[in-house]
């Protein structure tokens, strides 16, 4: 705590430099932040490095390889059983889940914030309540029983349907925060022009919530792309599993699941998320500031 107090002090001074040039406290501020950033980045860098190491180097106990080997990616895609299937499953499940959840959340949040909705308060408190309750854990036995009786074990819809509820409450609350930033006068003006509430949502609201929508899509993408417990419970056929479950249950070591091959699959699994984030990062940050975090 003493350390933190000291750097807070020094950092504050740094924002009002009395003379030109770098003050030592500015250096300390940035050094601390760079340290945290390094802690974040280094493990990821290690996996990427592992995926291009030659097999002997991967087991030699040195961090930097003597010889690079870029064939693991091709090998993983060609030789590893079911990896393509797992990849495809993940894409289908994630895409459907994100689409359905986001649509449900936008519609519901729009009605909660901008339309007259009897029982609105009850609805919102229920939504907030589910955030404080381990719903996923308590409901999993029931969800399994429903899907088993519907014959949806080891199927894509069997995963998509329960996936939608995973983040639905949070998504509605995030969208509620975004919709609350839009002044009701805009809505009233559109109404006077004779627009129905449905038209207002499409024509007036959607362009205004674009940044928030990016946040919503990313949050839901990350959850669905990486969901583990439900996929682990509702599928037992290796060919129907999603990528995270396939990866988590693959024991690293020798043979076809050698460390570099596993690392290559890993890099391919996390790249979509990081790429999407890198592209959408500007809108994402804007969306966060616009109230996605205020629920």
């Amino acid at each position: 705590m003493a350390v933190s107090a000291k750097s807070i002090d020094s950092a504050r001074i740094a924002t009002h430099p009395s003379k030109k040039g770098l003050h030592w406290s500015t250096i300390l501020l940035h050094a601390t932040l760079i340290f945290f950033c390094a802690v974040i980045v280094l493990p990821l860098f290690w996996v990427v490095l592992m995926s291009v190491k030659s097999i002997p180097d991967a087991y030699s106990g040195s961090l930097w390889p003597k010889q690079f080997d870029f064939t693991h990616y091709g090998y993983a895609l060609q030789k590893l059983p079911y990896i393509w299937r797992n990849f495809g499953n993940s894409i289908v499940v994630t895409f459907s889940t994100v689409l359905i959840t986001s649509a449900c959340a936008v519609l519901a949040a729009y009605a909660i914030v901008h339309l007259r909705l009897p029982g609105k308060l009850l609805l919102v408190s229920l939504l907030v309540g589910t955030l404080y309750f381990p719903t996923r854990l308590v409901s999993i036995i029931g969800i399994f029983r429903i899907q088993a009786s519907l014959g949806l074990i080891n199927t894509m819809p069997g995963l998509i349907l329960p996936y939608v509820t995973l983040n639905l409450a949070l998504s509605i609350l995030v969208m509620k925060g975004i919709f609350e930033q839009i002044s009701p006068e805009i809505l009233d003006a559109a109404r006077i022009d004779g627009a129905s509430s449905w038209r207002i949502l499409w024509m007036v609201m959607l362009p205004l919530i674009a940044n928030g929508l990016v946040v919503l899509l990313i949050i839901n993408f990350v959850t669905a792309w990486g969901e583990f417990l439900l996929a682990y419970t509702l599928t037992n056929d290796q060919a129907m599993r999603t990528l995270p479950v396939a990866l988590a249950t693959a024991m690293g070591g020798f043979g076809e699941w050698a460390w570099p091959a596993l690392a290559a699959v890993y890099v391919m699994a996390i790249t979509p998320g990081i790429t999407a984030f890198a592209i959408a990062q500007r809108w994402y940050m804007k969306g966060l500031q616009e109230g996605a975090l205020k629920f």
Partner: protein
Amino acid sequence: MASTAISKPIAHRRSRLYGLRDGVNWLYVLPALFFFCMYMLYPIIEVIVISFTDYKFLSSEPMRFTGLTNFINALQDPLVHKGLLRALYFTSIFLPGVIFIPLFVAILVDRVTNPALASLYRVILLIPAVIPGPMIFVLWRWMYDFEVGPINTILVNYLNLFTYRNAPQWLGNSPLTIPAIAFVEWWWGLGYHTMFFLAGLAAIPKELFEAAKVDGANEWQMFWNVTLPRLRPIFVVLVVLRFGTAMAVIDEYIIMGGFNRALPTYTWTVYMWHLAFNIGNWFQGYAAAIGWIGAAAMLVVVGLLFYVFRDRD
């Protein structure tokens, strides 16, 4: 509906009485409601029902109503006690780090004056937030690996602090397991929680600091008396939310620990899953009771936390 709105939109908005026509707006909520009822409410109710039975999924015998037997057995089950205590131990390590480290980092990032650098720091810190949880745990299972894991590689081969004979065992049956997993959670949540605190810091009016400075407050006093009280609501929400997630953690335990009862990662959540989907004839009735006992214990603490942090003004 549009026609009523045209006549007097603003007066309409303010009136507290709802007409029958407003019920039509529930159509917008209907899709969300369907999923809630079908895959949250109904399964939860079903779990309550079967927790009072001897239901086993793989057994062909019809389920029998057994009253409170499951709950009485679960409350006397040493594995349930141990499981709850293990989860509590994890939570007590996890919670301070996931709140105070992001708070500290947020205060630092908030003081970076160069806008390009400030957003660069934010983006880098947020990278783990876009990596799905299981991927994080798989990654750190490698990081902690006894032989090829880079942490032990650095400790043994580069720093020469240990040999492979006495190098620390991070996961498995080791006292380091729970702190090691808590660290993974800190790493994962750092950026995301920092964003929460940054949003809170940005909402503090700058005049407050100016006024405090005029009154001769030093930096530490300003932090303690201006910044911290303003961050309080965020702080409370995060503490309670994260308490809930930490007590109900299961993915990390399954991925990093598996189903070995002797391991410190075998908490009540893993025990519940193990009973419901793996052991014997899949004792789902008993597992449901354990799930409810764990959830109830958590709810009590959540209520207590809200009471402790209530607004006293």
